[in-house]
Structures are given as C-alpha cells and as structure tokens.
C-alpha cells in the first residue's frame, strides 16, 4: 500500500461514488433506529469533498485529508460529520510530512483516528457505532506485514456481522435500547464502504 496525493484523491472519489450509489441503503438503515438521514448526509458530505478536492492543488497527502476532514465537518449536519471529520483530521495529522503514506504509517494513523472518534463521541467498542467498524479494521492493519486489501475487507466483513447483534448505547440508536439489536448500524456500514473504496484503490497499486 502506497497512498500518494493522487491515490488519496482517487480514494475519496471512489468513496463518493459508493456513497451516491448506497445513499438509499444507508438512509433506509438509519430509519428503524435513527432519523433516516445517514445516506443523505454521506452523499452530500462526500460530494462536497470531491468538489473541494477537484478545485484544489495538493502537494501532500496530509493536506488532502485535512480538507476532507474540514469539508465533512462543515457539510454533514448529523453526528457522522464531526465523527468522520475527526477521523480524517487525525489521519491527516499523523501522516503530516510524508510524501507517500506506507502501510505502517497508515496503520499508526488509523489508531489515532479510532482514538479520535472515541473521544469525540465519548464512546468505545461494543456500543454499536462506526467505532465497531473502524476499530477492528485498524486492529487488522496492525498485524501481519503481508497485509492485503482482501485481509482488510475480511476484517470489515466480520465486523459488519457482529455489529448487527450489538445493543446501541450511543447516538440516536441508543434511544431504542434493546430494540436496536438485530439492526445494522448505518455509520458502521458507511465506514465499510469507505474502506471498500480504499481496498479498490489499493488493489490497483501495481
């Protein structure tokens, strides 16, 4: 894995395409245990991200990701705005100065992102939020040095299954208590797509 400015922009473009394609799915997931806007939030947020990136020249991956963070924070009206925003801001800070981001650095940056989300949302693993996707993916990154995109997606897939059975104790879904069990968490699913887009870009590495 080698993220340079071009690849990072590509990652965001592919993420945006997925969010547009999955807009209704994400919104539908947010209906039974939320306010039914997660797809709208993500589609708007990443569209704005892509608009911003296409309008700007970048010399550094860190700068790209900072603009991603800022755009998501200001353009997403819901909880996912500050959460994704914080995640990207942490990654941006962690990779500052690097021309291309190698796997090890990215793994470190992901740890920071997870901590950032936890802090921002005052939540931890097992509360049925996007943390339950970000955290296992980050974990997976820390392990084998021959880590491949397929391994990442395997971790993501496994995480998705287990999120369903959790009871929400943070965010809007928490109001539904035990009724939240059996539903997917919309933020975990959008996070899944974010990393799926990364896997696609990464697979094209050479």
């Amino acid at each position, binding site marked *: 894995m080698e993220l340079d400015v071009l690849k990072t922009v590509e990652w965001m473009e592919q993420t945006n395409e997925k969010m547009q394609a999955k807009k209704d799915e994400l919104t539908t997931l947010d209906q039974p245990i939320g306010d039914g806007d997660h797809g709208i939030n993500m589609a708007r947020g990443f569209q704005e991200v892509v608009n911003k990136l296409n309008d700007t020249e970048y010399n550094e991956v860190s700068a790209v990701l900072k603009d991603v963070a800022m755009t998501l*924070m*200001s353009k997403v009206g819901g909880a996912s705005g500050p959460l994704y*925003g914080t995640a990207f801001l942490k990654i941006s800070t962690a990779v500052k100065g690097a021309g291309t981001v190698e796997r090890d650095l990215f793994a470190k940056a992901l740890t920071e992102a997870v901590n950032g989300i936890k802090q921002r949302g005052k939540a931890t693993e097992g509360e049925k939020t996007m943390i339950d996707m970000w955290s296992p993916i980050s974990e997976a990154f820390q392990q084998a040095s021959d880590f491949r995109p397929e391994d990442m997606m395997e971790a993501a897939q496994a995480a998705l299954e287990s999120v369903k059975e959790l009871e929400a104790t943070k965010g809007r879904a928490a109001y539904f208590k035990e009724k939240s069990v059996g539903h997917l968490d919309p933020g975990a699913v959008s996070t899944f797509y974010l990393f799926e887009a990364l896997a696609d870009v990464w697979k094209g590495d050479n």
Partner: protein
Amino acid sequence: MAFVGIVLISHSSHIAEGTKELIRQVMKEVPIETAGGTDEGEIGTSIEKINAAIEQANQGEGVLLFYDIGSAKMNAEMAIEITGRDDLKLIEAPIVEGSYVAAVEAGMEKNLDEVYQSVTRSFGKKQ
C-alpha cells in the same frame, strides 16, 4: 454593561428561535444567538453557524452554549475547540428551560461560572 452570552444550538431553527423569543420577553439585553438547523436549512446542526453565534454572543464575558440532542453536542464541542477560547462553556441542561434560567442569571450580571452553576443546580443531567 456586558453580559454573559447565550448560544442556542438546536437541530431545528424553530426551537432555537422560539426559545430566543421566550427569553426576549423577559430579558432584553442579554445576548442570545441561535444556531439552528444545517447550512441548507434542514434538520441538523452546523459548526459554522455555531461559530458565528459564539462570535456574536461574546461581549467579553464569555458564552454559555445549550444544545438539544446528541450530535449537536459533538458539533458544539468541535466549534469550541476551533475557536481556541477558554471563555466558552457547553452545558448539559434542557435547552428551553435551562437557557431561560441562564438568561435571567446573566441579566443579573452573574459571571460565566455563576450562571453555569445556577443552571446546573436547577436541573438534573441530560440523558
């Protein structure tokens, strides 16, 4: 005379404006600013609106921020961090009932900590 300012952060601009209207009946001078809805006028909150409201509400005596539910809190915290100021306090209290108490207290020229304490004493914590 300068007063502690109040910022009302709500997912709905109607809630924020209505609360301001309720307070204005009893307190004419205390700065009350609203940050209701998203930039697109939909339900949600906006860091930019919150920042603008903080700016407007601060007469040098600091600002107390009220929010309605969940994610508004995160946006409020981000907005506060962005300003880098230490005379801003986010409070866990009912947005309508709490800000009414705060406005009366602020109008009596209490300082930020005193207003914060009064409101906290009057209400239990939010969920």
